[in-house]
Structure formats: structure tokens, C-alpha cells
């Protein structure tokens, strides 16, 4: 049942979304997600968490068992508003008998885009996704990456306010992925809202403003990306010289001494300064202090209950912010 809710300023406002298959399999168990207008929102979660089910419910491909909420201010499933939504499904299958250009025209016509606009936008988006020279080639001749580019173009043909992309970089090479990221950021600049479902956490990390982690049909974490990842899980203090004389004191503070670095689990800046003082007291040179922050992967792992202890996080962790050495 989809109940009508009050109009909101959220681009996507999902309230208490449930989906049960065959009266026994609870794919979604009361999902609440809010996506602000003009932001890039990432949905992540392990396999079977219900991400695709949720996206399909938003796009009316699947009927919810129970749901409230709005899409662009109108109740879920409102047909008129779907004209303002662009959608790229995961594992899409486009009709093989069409050419790229004809496919864009067909789907845009279904989205009620006028013929004149279709002509103009097809040329624009084919160019934008680098498919102009393949516009009149049949789709069954396309590679997976080309299909994906075309899929992104079709999702944008109706000049949507909200773009829902399910695994948009699937099958794309690194160069094309960077182009897609750039495209997403350009779309955000134009004021469009983007709802991304991707298993490539590094991709999400690079573009998302906010994310939600879905686990077992429930939202386990939700918030601005910075807020979720800003917590430092460990500090690493790099130095040069011999710190053996203060090893015992360092270990008393709960830190671990390596040959040229001290690792301090946790987020206690007072202890960081104490260790620096100890090292400086030995006339050692402090080369740098690196807070090891949560990555999206850590957020996800923590949410599913497989979170790492700070000591498990490798030194070459991708998300690092340098704190100027206090030497």
C-alpha cells in the first residue's frame, strides 16, 4: 500500500518501506531514507541487503508491501512525477533491434519528451557520453561499456530533476569511470539530485554528499559522508631516530612502537600529544602525524557487524589526511 504523505522538500523521502516476498522473505523491513535536492546520495550495503529492491520500489518496478513517502514531493508511484525522473537499472537490456539514437528517441517519447527536444537532447547526450559516432549502429553491436554509456544518456533524455542510477559504472574502464564521475558532478552543479546505488565504494566515496548503508532490509547508517568517515580510528606518528628508550612509556599509553612509527588506536588527541612529547624528549624528529580515518568500506563493514579494529587497518589506507608534523 502506498499512502499519500504530505509534500516535502526532500527529493526522495522514503518512510517505513516494507517489502515481503511470499509472506516469508522480508527484503525491506521499514526503510527510512531522505535525499536532499541537489545532492548526490549513495546507497550501499552488502549483497542481499535490499538495495535493488528499494530502487525498484522507488521506480514502481516492484510494488511495496507497505510504504509511505514521496518522490519529488509527490507520493511514491505518482506517474506524472516519473516524467521528471531518469533511471538507469542494473543489468539493463535494451532492444537489440534499435540503434543508439533510436533507443534514446523511443524512451524519451515514453517519457513524453517532444520530438524537437528529443532531437536536440539525443545529439547532446550522445556527445556527452562519447557515443556520437555509434549513434546509428545497432545496439547488438555495442560493447558492455557502450551500453552503459547509452543507458546513462537515456536516463538523462527527459531532463530529469532526479536521476536514479543503479551501478552506473558497471562495465566501464577507469577512464570512462572518471568521465561518469565528472558527469555526475556536473549534473549536481546543474541542481539535479542523483541517487546512486553502487557496490564500488571508492566511486561513491569520491562523489557522494550523503550515503545510507542498508543491512538486512534496514538502514544501519545514514548521513553526510564526512560525518560518517571523519572519525579517526588510529593515529600514526612518524619519526626518525631511536625510540627504544621510551618504548615502555609509549606502550603504557596503549600505543605500539614500530621501527619508525608509533600507532595509537582511537581518537585521543591528548595521548597523541603525550607521545609526541615523549619522542621529542628523546630529541627525535617528528616527520608527520597521520590520522587514519574511516573509509566508506569501514562504515559498511562496521554496519554489517564485521568492523575492523583500528589495529587491523593497513598503513596504506586510501583515506588519509595529513596533520602537519609538530616538530
Amino acid at each position, binding site marked *: 500500500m502506498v499512502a499519500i504523505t504530505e509534500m516535502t522538500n526532500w527529493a526522495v523521502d522514503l518512510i517505513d518501506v516494507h517489502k515481503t*516476498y511470499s509472506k516469508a522473505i522480508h527484503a525491506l523491513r521499514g526503510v527510512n531514507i531522505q535525499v536532499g535536492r541537489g545532492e548526490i546520495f549513495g546507497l550501499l550495503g552488502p549483497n542481499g541487503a535490499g538495495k535493488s529492491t528499494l530502487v*525498484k520500489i522507488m*521506480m*514502481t*518496478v*516492484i*510494488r511495496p508491501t507497505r510504504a509511505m513517502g514521496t518522490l519529488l514531493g509527490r507520493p511514491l508511484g505518482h*506517474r*506524472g*512525477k*516519473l*516524467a521528471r*525522473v531518469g*533511471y538507469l*537499472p*542494473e*543489468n*539493463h*537490456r*535494451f*532492444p*537489440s*533491434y*534499435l540503434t543508439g539514437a*533510436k533507443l534514446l*528517441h*523511443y*524512451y524519451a*517519447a*515514453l*517519457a*513524453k519528451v*517532444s520530438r524537437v527536444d528529443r532531437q536536440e537532447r539525443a545529439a547532446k547526450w550522445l556527445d556527452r557520453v562519447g557515443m556520437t559516432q555509434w549513434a546509428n549502429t545497432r545496439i547488438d553491436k555495442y560493447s558492455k561499456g557502450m551500453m552503459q554509456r547509452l543507458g546513462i544518456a*537515456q536516463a538523462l533524455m527527459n531532463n530529469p530533476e532526479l536521476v*536514479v542510477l543503479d551501478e552506473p559504472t558497471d562495465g566501464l574502464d577507469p577512464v570512462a569511470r572518471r568521465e561518469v564521475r565528472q558527469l555526475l558532478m556536473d549534473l549536481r552543479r546543474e541542481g539535479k539530485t542523483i541517487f546512486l546505488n553502487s557496490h564500488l565504494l571508492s566511486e561513491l566515496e569520491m562523489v557522494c554528499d550523503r550515503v545510507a548503508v542498508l543491512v538486512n532490509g534496514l538502514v544501519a547508517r545514514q548521513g553526510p559522508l564526512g560525518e560518517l568517515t571523519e572519525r579517526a580510528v588510529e593515529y600514526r606518528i612518524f619519526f626518525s631516530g631511536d625510540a627504544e628508550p621510551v618504548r615502555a612509556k609509549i606502550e603504557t599509553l596503549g600505543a605500539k612502537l614500530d621501527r619508525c612509527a608509533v600507532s595509537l588506536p582511537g581518537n585521543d588527541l591528548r595521548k597523541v600529544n603525550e607521545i609526541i612529547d615523549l619522542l621529542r624528549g628523546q630529541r627525535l624528529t617528528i616527520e608527520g602525524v597521520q590520522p587514519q580515518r574511516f573509509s566508506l568500506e569501514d562504515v559498511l563493514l562496521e554496519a554489517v557487524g564485521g568492523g575492523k579494529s583500528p589495529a587491523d587497518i593497513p598503513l596504506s589506507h586510501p583515506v588519509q589526511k595529513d596533520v602537519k608534523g609538530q616538530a
Partner: protein
Amino acid sequence: MQFIAMVVDSLRESLDRKIFWVMVAVTFLVVLSMLSLGFEENSVTFFFGMWKQNTDHFNPVTLIGRRAIISGVVHVVLDFFLGWIGVLLMIVATGGMLPSLMQRGAIDVVLAKPINRPRLFLYKYLSILVFALLQAVLFVGLTFLVMGFHWKVWVPGYLLSIPLLVLLFSYVFCISALVATKTESTIAAILLSLVAWVFFAMPPIGLEVFEKYPELQQYTRSYQSAQLAAWVVPKTGDIPYFAAKWAGGGTALDLVPASVMADADEQGKAELEKTKQREEQLLMKNPWLSIGSSLLFEAVIVGWAMWNFKRKDF
């Protein structure tokens, strides 16, 4: 705009299927065969005049001759080549269209468009009927022109065969659509619609048996069931007779010259007479009642399929 887009898409999908071109080839073969025939006052020529048979039965100048020619075109050319072979090919050609629409990954994009599910289903259904319409227009149009230009028999009423053939196809195709929404399988859609087509012919045959052997009518429940079934299911067998009637033709037996009928023995004559009477009855049937009740059946089946489509999770 959405309906036109779906019609155009269905046409493109049809053109992509080899079976569409097989149907076009059959049409041109039939037209060529008709062109090889010639009707004159006292003879019929075959193979572009290479062989001549003297008879005045197909004299295009006389009413009886015209009726015989029209009956031949309707009962042999139209009924056999388009009514049977054509519909069979169309069922095979279109059987995969709804399942391919409902494939995971294909349906997702379409359902996310601002068109509600019942309308989407109906548009697709109608756009497939447009495919049948085009085939019928091509076949009937070309054979109409051959009759007019080559045989000098202009029969505007023959063009009414076009909607009749689309109706005939739609009676069978609605089953294909229903099966597709249940199973999403092309093979199941084709096979079960063909089974249904055969089944549609059963109640009239059953009724004939009851009428041929009146003593069976004492089994009241069976007799009434046969009557009910004959009323409920689409009357596919009526279509050629309505086409013949509206084109000014007669029964299939009109093709047989009176001299041949006269040569038959008494039993043969009795059989021919019975057949003629049955055909005459079909010609006299009320087309609106037959078509109306058949359309009612189709509407129920399409409504059921639409309901399945509306409630389905993809």
C-alpha cells in the same frame, strides 16, 4: 505520443524478425499465383495463359461467375493463406513480443516512465495488433488489386476482410498475451495460444455432432454446455463467412461447378447439400452477435492479462 512510440517500436521489432519477411514472401507468392490465373467468359487460364480450361462457371461478367470468383478468393486464398497460415505465422512472430517487453532489465526502464501499467500493457497489445493490421492490409490490398486490375472484378466489400482478419488474429493473440503475463515465456505463449485456437473450434464441432445425432440431445447438461461454450468462445470459424458475405461471395461450394455437383451419386449429393446448408447458415449468422460475443471473451482475457501485468513484481 506514447502509443505512437510503442507502435513504431513494435514495427521495428517485427521487421527485425525473419518470420515477418516469410509472411511478406507468402503474400507475394499468393499474389503471383493469382496473377497466373485468368478468368474469361468461357474459360479459365492457368500459368499465365499456358493452360486453358473451358468453363463458364467463373465468367466475371455474370453474377454467378463473380460470386464464384469472390468465394474462391475468400475461402481459398484469404481463409487458407491468411486465415490459417498467416495467423499461425503472426502468432509465432508476435508470441515473443510481450515476454521480451517483460524481461528483467528491459521492463525496468519502461515501467519507470510516466505511463501507468494497464495503459502500457494495452498500448503494447494494440501495437502488436497494428502489426497484424499491416500484414492484413498488404495481403488483402494486393489481392484486391489483382482481382480488380487483372480479373476486372472490383469488390470494395472485400476490403472489410482487413478488420475481420485482425479480429481473427486478436481472438487467438489475447490468449498469448494472458500466458505471457503469467509465464513470461515465449514458447508457452505460442503453444498455449495455438492450443486455444484449436479449442475455439471445438464447441461448434460439438454442437454439430448434437445436431447430427438428435438422440444425443437427451444428455441435456452436455448439450447445454456445448451451447454455452459455443456462445462464449471466440467464433473463429465465422470470420471467413462474414468476409465472403460482405464481399458479395457465397459458400466454398460455390467454387464447384453445377456439372460436377450433378455427377455425384445420391449419397454424395446429400452430403454436398448438407454442407451447403451448413455454410448457408454460417453466411446468414448475425455478424454483430458473433463478433460482439467474441470481443467480450477477448475483453475478459485482456482484462485478466492486464490485471496480472498490473500486479506483477519485476
